[in-house]
C-alpha cells in the first residue's frame, strides 16, 4: 500500500525524470562511443608506447571499436521513427564498407579516369590519345591476347583442379593432410614462387648437368634441353601453370566449404535412387554449389586479368608473354607516363564489365527480405 501511494505522488516527477534520463542516455551513449573511438584513433596514430601494447590496443579497437560503431549506429537508427529506421538500417551494415571503398578505391579510380585523358605529366589534355594507344599498340594487343589465355586456362585449371580435389578429399581418409599440401603453395609469396619455378624451368646447355627438373627429365630421355620461357607461344602456358599451382588451393578451400554445406539428405536421396557417384556429383552437388563456383571463378578471372608478378619476374613480358598489368606498371612507374598508365588501368575496369554483368545477373536471382 505504501508503494501505491509513493508511486502515485511521485508519478509526475518520476515520469519526467525517466524521460529526461532517456534523452540523456540517447545522447550520451553515442557521445561516449565517439570519444572512445576517437581516443583509440589518436592513441594508435600518435603514441609511442611499446609495439606490443599498440598491437593489442589495435586488435581490441579493431574488433571492439568496429563492433561498437555498428551497435551505436544501430542504436541511433532504432531511435528514429519506424519507417525512417527501416530505410536507414541497411546502411548501418553496408555503410562503413562503402565509405572505406569509396575513399581507398573508388575515388582513386575516378582520379585515374580523369588523368587518362591527359598526357604523361598530366599537364595537357589529349582526349582519347591514350586509349587509342592502349587499343592499337602492338605490345598491348599482345597483352590482351595473353590475358585471355590466362583467364581461360588459369581459371579453368584452378577451378577445375580445385573442384576435383575438393570432391576427392571429401571422400578420403586423409582429407586434412591432402588439403594442407595443396594449399601450401598459396602461403608462398610470388617472390618465393618465382624462385621455386626457376628450379623447374632452368636451362643449362647440352652436356652440362641440368639444374631444372623439366630439362633433367627431357635430357634423361635423350632430347636436348630447352629454354622453356623463350619458346613461343608455349611459354605462356608454362607461366599459367604456375598460377594454377598457386591458386588451386584457394579454389579448393572455398569449394570445399561449400561442399560441406550440401545437405546430406539430398545426396542420400540421389544415391538411394540408384544414381552413380558421377551422376550424383554432376546433377545434384554441382548445381547446389554453382553460385560458389561462380564466385571462385570470378575472383580467379579477375586475378588473371591483373596478373603481374609471375610474368614480370620470370620473363619481364619478353618472348611474347606481355600482360596488361605489366604494361600498366611500366607506363606508370618506369616511364612515368601517368596518362597511359591511368588509361590502361581504366581499360582493366572496362574489361571486367562482362564479369560484372554476369554477377549482377546472379545477384538479381537471390532472395531478399
Amino acid at each position: 500500500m505504501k508503494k501505491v501511494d509513493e508511486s502515485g505522488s511521485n508519478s509526475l516527477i518520476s515520469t519526467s525524470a525517466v524521460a529526461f534520463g532517456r534523452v540523456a542516455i540517447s545522447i550520451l551513449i553515442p557521445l561516449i562511443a565517439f570519444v572512445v573511438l576517437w581516443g583509440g584513433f589518436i592513441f594508435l596514430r600518435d603514441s609511442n608506447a611499446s609495439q606490443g601494447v599498440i598491437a593489442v590496443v589495435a586488435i581490441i579497437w579493431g574488433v571492439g571499436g568496429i563492433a561498437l560503431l555498428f551497435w551505436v549506429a544501430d542504436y541511433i537508427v532504432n531511435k528514429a521513427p519506424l519507417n525512417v529506421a527501416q530505410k536507414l538500417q541497411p546502411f548501418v551494415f553496408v555503410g562503413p564498407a562503402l565509405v572505406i571503398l569509396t575513399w581507398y578505391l573508388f575515388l582513386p579510380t575516378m582520379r585515374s579516369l580523369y588523368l587518362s585523358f591527359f598526357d604523361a605529366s598530366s599537364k595537357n589534355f589529349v582526349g582519347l590519345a591514350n586509349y587509342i594507344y592502349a587499343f592499337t599498340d602492338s605490345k598491348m594487343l599482345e597483352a590482351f591476347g595473353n590475358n585471355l589465355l590466362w583467364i581461360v586456362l588459369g581459371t579453368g585449371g584452378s577451378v577445375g583442379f580445385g573442384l576435383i580435389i575438393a570432391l576427392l578429399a571429401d571422400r578420403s581418409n586423409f582429407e586434412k593432410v591432402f588439403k594442407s599440401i595443396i594449399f601450401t603453395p598459396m602461403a608462398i609469396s610470388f617472390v618465393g614462387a618465382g624462385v621455386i619455378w626457376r628450379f623447374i624451368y632452368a636451362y643449362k646447355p647440352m652436356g652440362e648437368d641440368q639444374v631444372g627438373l623439366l630439362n633433367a627429365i627431357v635430357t634423361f630421355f635423350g632430347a636436348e634441353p630447352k629454354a622453356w620461357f623463350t619458346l613461343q607461344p608455349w611459354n605462356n602456358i608454362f607461366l599459367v601453370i604456375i598460377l594454377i599451382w598457386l591458386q588451386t588451393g584457394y579454389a579448393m578451400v572455398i569449394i570445399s566449404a561449400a561442399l560441406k554445406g550440401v545437405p546430406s539428405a539430398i545426396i542420400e536421396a540421389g544415391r538411394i535412387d540408384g544414381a552413380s557417384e558421377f551422376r550424383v556429383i554432376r546433377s545434384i552437388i554441382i548445381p547446389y554449389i554453382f553460385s560458389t563456383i561462380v564466385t571462385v571463378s570470378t575472383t580467379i578471372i579477375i586475378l588473371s586479368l591483373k596478373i603481374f608478378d609471375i610474368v614480370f619476374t620470370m620473363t619481364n613480358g619478353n618472348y611474347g608473354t606481355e600482360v596488361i598489368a605489366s604494361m600498366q606498371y611500366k607506363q606508370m612507374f618506369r616511364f612515368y607516363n601517368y596518362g597511359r598508365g591511368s588509361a590502361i588501368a581504366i581499360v582493366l575496369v572496362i574489361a571486367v564489365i562482362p564479369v560484372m554483368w554476369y554477377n549482377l545477373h546472379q545477384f538479381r536471382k537471390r532472395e531478399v527480405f
Partner: protein
Amino acid sequence: MKKAFVVVMIALLLLPALFAGGKAEADAAKTVRVFGAFVDEEARRFEEAIKPFEERTGIKVIYEGSKDFETLIEVRVSGGNAPDIAGLPQPGLMNTFAKQGVLVPVWSKLEGLLNSNYAPVWKDLGSYGGTTYGVFHRVNAKSFVWYPKKAWDKAGYKVPTTWDELMRLQDQMVRDGVRPWAIGIEAGGATGWVGTDWVEDIMLRTAGPDVYDKWVSNELPFDAPEVKKAFDILEGIWLNDSYVYGGKNTILTSSFGDSVSPLFDNPPKAMMHRQGNFITGFFPDDIQANLEEEVGVFALPAIDPAFGIPVLGGGDQFVVFNDRPEVREFMEYLATWESGELWAKAGGALFPYLNQDLNAYPNAIERSLAEALVNAKVFRFDASDLMPAEVGAGTFWTGIVDWVNGRSTNQVLADIQKSWPR
C-alpha cells in the same frame, strides 16, 4: 547480461583514450633522411662512411634503401612524402624530378665544391636545363673484361691490346677447345641491360663520343648506319655459337650475376666476361678472397684507334628535396672524398673525386679501375640511363632480348626508333 557486456566493452575501449597522450616528441637531434637504391652490405658501408660526419656535427643521418626504389621514389615524391635527400641511379630520373620542379638546386658553396672536387663531366651529368641538382657519390666503370688469371697463365694467353688481338685470341681459345665468352642477360624486370652496355661500348669505339652524344639525344636516329654497325660487330661475337658458352639460350636464360661463374669452374668453361666493376661481388667466395691472384682485368680494346679506349660508366647522384641547414651540411659532406673513403676501403665502390687517395682501395684491381675512371680522357655515362625511360628502360632492353632470340637487326632498330617519345 548484454548490457553488462556493453558496459565492460566501453570501459575497455576507454583505456586507450587515457594513453592518447600527444604525438611522439620531436627528435632532439637534427635528422636528415636519405633514401637510396642500394641495400644490405652496401647500405651498411655507406652508413659507416658517413659516420665521421655524424660524429663531427651531431646531425643524425638515417638511410633507407629499397630494391623497389624506382616505384617508391615516384610514389613518395608525388604523394608528398619525399625524403630529404635521394640517391638517384639514373640521370634520367633526376631530369624527371627537375622538370617537375621538386628538386633544390645546388647553392654556391656546394657548387664551389663540385667545381674543385670533380671533373666537369660529373657536374654536367647532374644538371638539367643549365641548373645543377646532383652530387655524384659512388660510381661504377663498365668497359672491362674479366678473366681467370691462373687458367690464362696456364694456357699462355696474353692480354689483348687491340681489337684484332682480341679477335685472334677468341679464335685461339676456340681452337683450344674452350668458349671465349660467358654472357648472360637475364635480370628479371630489367632483362637485356647487359646487351645495351656492350652496344654502348662498341658505339664509343667505332663512332666516337660526339656521335655517341647525338645517339643519346636521338639527333642520330636509332636505326642509323652507325648503330647498325655496332650491332653487327656485336652479332659477330654474341650470335656465333662457338664464341659463347652455352649459345644464345644461355645468354637469354642465364642471370647476369650467375653468368660469370663458368670462368671459375675447374677447368673454366669460358675465358672472358665483359662487365662493370660491381661483378666482383658475384665471384665465388674463395675467388673474392684472393682477388688479385685469381682474377685479371683489362679494358675492352679500342676498335678504331682514333677513338682510343673511352670509359663507359654510371653512378648514383644525390639530390635534395627538402632544403634545411642540416641537409645542406650533409650534401656538402657528400661532395668530398671523406664521405666515400671508408666505403672505398671496404671494396666494391669507386669514386670520382679528383683528390682521392688511390691507395685506399683494397686491391690492385680496384685501384687500376679507379685510376682509369678518374684519368679517363673520354668518359661517357651509360646511354640507356640517359635516354628516355621508354627506350632506355624499355624498348632498348626488350629489343636486345628479341634480337638475341632471332629478330633481325633492322627490325629491332626500327622498333626502338619508333618508340622514341616525341
